[in-house]
């Protein structure tokens, strides 16, 4: 679809640029991969988990809000999301200019942040800046601000899970499943469109 006036722009919500470079190089991606160590794009567009996508048209208008969007069925057994449903909708829009949501629906499904989430994002930025500065004591300061971010946004994946590798926690380990349990118990807050989501997900 790259020929039909269509462009994928990938943004890695990642403080570890080496991990991004390694993945993007290995996959030989044909689209740009940008590195967003401060989660600026999450803040601007309301991303609370990955992978997720937003559609923007030729006139810079958001025509589909943030929605969990698998590139493939790699994690289907976990996410219960059928990637083919996403791919078909995308094809209809790019090739046929057909949208599945109108403007009012786009607004309804947006996730405007709470002030707590905005503050959590700033704490996380301070933590990343301290980690990069690396003066004596900055590591402790970085951890302090990562913890403050998690207190303010305990159910946001970009904060909770995104922090795990920064403090040496296995993002597929015990802490992660504890977080998933908390998140499921709270009603799985996040993208509500649920495009391609199969019924009866069992995440707990």
């Amino acid at each position, binding site marked *: 679809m790259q020929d039909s006036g269509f462009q994928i722009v990938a943004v890695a919500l990642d403080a570890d640029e080496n991990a991004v470079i390694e993945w993007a190089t290995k996959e030989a991606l044909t689209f740009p991969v940008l590195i967003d160590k401060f989660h600026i794009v999450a803040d601007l567009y309301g991303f609370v988990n990955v992978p997720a996508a937003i559609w923007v048209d030729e006139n810079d208008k958001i025509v589909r809000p943030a929605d969990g969007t698998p590139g493939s069925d790699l994690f289907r057994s976990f996410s219960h999301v059928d990637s083919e449903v996403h791919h078909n909708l995308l094809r209809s829009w790019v090739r046929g200019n057909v949208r599945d949501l109108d403007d009012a629906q786009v607004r309804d499904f947006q996730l405007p942040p709470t002030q707590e989430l905005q503050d959590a994002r*700033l704490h996380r*930025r301070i933590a990343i800046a301290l980690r990069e500065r690396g003066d004596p004591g900055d590591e402790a300061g970085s951890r302090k601000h990562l913890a403050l971010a998690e207190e303010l946004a305990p159910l946001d994946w970009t904060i909770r899970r995104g922090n795990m590798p920064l403090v040496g926690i296995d993002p597929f380990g015990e802490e992660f499943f504890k977080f998933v349990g908390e998140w499921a118990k709270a009603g799985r807050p996040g993208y509500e469109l649920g495009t391609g989501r199969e019924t009866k997900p069992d995440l707990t």
Partner: protein
Amino acid sequence: MESSSLVIRSDGGTSAVTSSREFGDFSILVSDFEGATGWGLKPEGLCKGDVCYPVRNVEELSDGVNIDLATFAKLTNQSLLFDSEYQVAALGELASSRATSMSTLVAPDFRLPDIHGKQVSFSDFNRRKRLLLAWSSW
């Protein structure tokens, strides 16, 4: 006492500045202000591009040498978090402003480095349909 601090703007740009606690809890030198924040203190008020916010009481904002970041953030409708111990301040968008900007459905521009270290703007790909994909290695 003056120290060297970092200021992180809402667009992610980061600057090293000279800060002090002599004027407000976290102030930076007037000479560092525009470079660090992108805002200028002018006769019309605090200005960035075409946008100006009036400053009714300049003495509250600046003693002529320093600018108090908390007052600056309040006057320009931004949020501010700072840590005086670690000497870092971060300016951000208030939740209410973000909700308003999101509801316009106008896709905001941003500028980030790509994997080769080249600065890329979202608007470099304008006038075509775009899939903005948020992804991560974690």
